[in-house]
């Protein structure tokens, strides 16, 4: 049994499947992988979601397979990854549903 405590705001496990409660007709999911220029996935990278004015919105740590996922809103966002292999940015314009994106670092 799970302890009946409040849920916090910590970043969830990025390898976990999309929760069944998430309605892709309503939510705007931005998901993808962080990789190096040579195409190797980067585990343990810190991925920051920045809004269209460059302000921070959220941050997660990539899974062993380099995956990340955000629940945002339709519009333009920047994904910025920090890692021991270097940093990198990708800008995306997204809509409701699942939006896939790759961030390259180095």
């Amino acid at each position, binding site marked *: 049994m799970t*302890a*009946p*405590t*409040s*849920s*916090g*705001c*910590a*970043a*969830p*496990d990025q390898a976990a499947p999309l*929760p069944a*409660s*998430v309605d892709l007709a309503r*939510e705007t999911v931005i998901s993808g992988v962080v990789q190096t220029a040579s195409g190797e996935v980067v585990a*343990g990278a*810190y991925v*920051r*979601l920045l*809004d269209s004015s460059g*302000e*921070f*919105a*959220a*941050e*997660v*740590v990539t899974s062993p397979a380099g995956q990340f*996922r*955000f*629940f*945002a*809103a339709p519009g333009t966002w920047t994904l*910025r990854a*920090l*890692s*021991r292999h270097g940093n990198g940015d990708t800008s995306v314009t997204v809509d409701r549903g699942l939006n896939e994106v790759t961030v390259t670092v180095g």
Partner: protein
Amino acid sequence: MSRDTALVSVDWAEKNLDTPGVVFVEVDEDTTAYDAGHIPGAIKLNWKTDLQDPVRRDALSKEQFEALLSERGISNDDTVILYGGNNNWFAAYAYWYFKLYGHRDVRLMDGGRKKWELDGRPLVKDVPNRPKTQYVAKDPDLSIRAFRDEVVAAIGKKNLVDVRSPDEYAGRLLAPAHLPQEAAQRGGHIPTAINVPWSKAANEDGTFKSDEELRELYREAGLDENKETIAYCRIGERSSHTWFVLHELLGYKNVKNYDGSWSEYGSLVGVPIALGDEPGEA
């Protein structure tokens, strides 16, 4: 309080891993990162299972806090160095707890787990075995904890600082953007609260900005240094980060953390709520 007594750098931490009387504690909502590798000698505290009352929604009582620290082998004389993932939010929450119960010497590690990892510093899986202690806590220092009635009474009178993201403040999102958006409570913010997201106080590697930058940040956002201040977020951990900045780094007096935060306020019947990007009227 000041940076010298409240904060240590990762360099200082790495040089003091074996210093007697210094205890490193990793704190997070979920401690799987600790289990996969942590700072050598560090013990863990789980925000969810260790730092909340298991039945009521509340902070641990004095007796519960004493039992927890005694069981984990922390003594009153130890210098406790807290760090964690999620940009030190939960470590800052634990820091606030240690202050609430009067611990003599507690500090945050600047940059937390992120800075330590990005620097490529050592992580180990060995879990230290610390002998039990007889920890004695002081009565809670309620000068740093705000409750709901006080928050409602502060509308238009004290500084209210909403440290959530602009979209949560405006009511466009109900939770941070790394979480699904289903939530029971209403969106928006406490009328007259200014919005200074916690992230504006930190650099991208998780370290805090300089005192000068921080002072300017809150001044520009409209914080009146001569008034009392209450910080809040959704559940009280991001606002612990801002409470730490205002009270511990900048030394402002009369700063409280409202740990009930939006998940309590946004569910209260009959209290005023402001929507949109402006603070709104009292």
